[in-house]
């Protein structure tokens, strides 16, 4: 598992209060992890802070699974 994946999963666990084993890369924030649209806004903010990337709203809208987040961060971080 990549270092980005570890850090993303840790943020998801902390923000959504879900068990770590549920946060697989295929997991959908809304369908599998109980997030609502505002939780996703908060998660995106946390990813921006953690990785020093900017995730514009149109890109954030396409992040629906843990894998989407990891992929976006890995291809955009400095």
């Amino acid at each position: 598992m990549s270092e980005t994946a570890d850090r993303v999963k840790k943020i998801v666990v902390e923000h959504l209060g879900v068990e770590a084993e549920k946060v697989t890369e295929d997991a959908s924030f809304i369908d599998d992890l109980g997030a609502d649209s505002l939780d996703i806004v908060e998660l995106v903010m946390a990813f921006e802070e953690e990785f020093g990337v900017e995730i514009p709203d149109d890109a954030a809208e396409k992040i629906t699974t843990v894998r989407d987040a990891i992929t976006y961060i890995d291809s955009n971080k400095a």
Partner: protein
Amino acid sequence: MRRVVVTGLGMVSPLGADVETSWKNILASKSGATRITRFDPTDYACQIACEVKAPDHEWGFDPAKRIDHKIQRQVDPFIIYGLDAAGQALEDAGLTDASEEERYRIGVSIGSGIGGLPGIEKESLVLAEKGPRRVSPHFVHGRLINLISGQVSIRYGLMGPNHAVVTACSTGAHSIGDAARMIIMDDADVMVAGGAESALCPLGIAGFAQARALSTQFNDQPERASRPYDKARDGFVMGEGAGVVVLEEYERAKKRGAKIYAELIGYGMSGDAYHVTAPHPEGAGGYRAMEVAMKRSGLSLSDIDYINAHGTSTPMGDELELGAVRRLFGNAIGDLSMSSTKSAIGHLLGGAGAVEAIFCILALRDQIVPPTLNLEDPSEGTAGVDLVPLVAKERSVKAVLNNSFGFGGTNASLIMKAV
């Protein structure tokens, strides 16, 4: 007219995470006051408060007991306290698994005086330091006053009236009184009602201190600072927490065999029309609130055995309230006891009236009245009144009156009796 009784109690206070622990500590003359731990108060005129204690404390509060991790992260402490106290009250009343049909007739009215001040303070610093894109998407609904009622409704599926009173330090009493009227008017059969507060943050302490409302002379002796009616009193000590009661239409409560603590028989309201922070110089507003509540109750003045005073420990307010009680009750004042539990838990602002109404109910249940701590050298104007100094007192308690007065000159009195 439909009658309203109390069938459930819930509390988070500086002396306990539940009703019975808080009451036991109140009766044992314990104090919830300490040096402020939430932030470094070194530069502040007032450095003490009655904080709700951390989970590792003997009577600490653990939010995880009833509240999801996610909600805990998103909302201010006043909502957490209110939601937990509401859960306690519903559990106590045996109403946590009401049917859908019943839940259409169960409402919520839990208010707060100030709301999410710690979160507003914190997020304004985020905005200033990091810009608008770092402000939490949960900022607004995690700070709004009516979001205790909202969260309680969502958590327990309560679909009746959903309301929130905001009348400063009268909020808790107004919430209960107004909710009772919703039952009387047949808007609901059950109301979960009360108040909550947590303004224990740098901005809250600085603001009240600048308004010259807080005690500043007892920073090295926190437990001695809240001393209503004592000559050395110099301001209130800020508290935090929540009090919530379940109000229920009497026939419904009787039919389901509910435990009935008390009947709410009187509610009076008034406005001072005088000053934003100072009470009316003759206590005229407080007098009229009590007078109206007495009239509604149908009781005689001599029927009131215990008054839980607003009694905040400010130099002006305590004696004005006592003067108003003296004028209204006349000779009957010699037979009643009157104390201020703010001496033990501080001033819970919007939560005060509800927490104190619960102490009144427990006085009815246990036939004992809680003490006024630190009343060592009573003010001149207190002669001939039993202010229950220092220790609790066993006595006959058949009817009780609770006073709450708030900034803006808003007053509320509640009267309850055993059923």
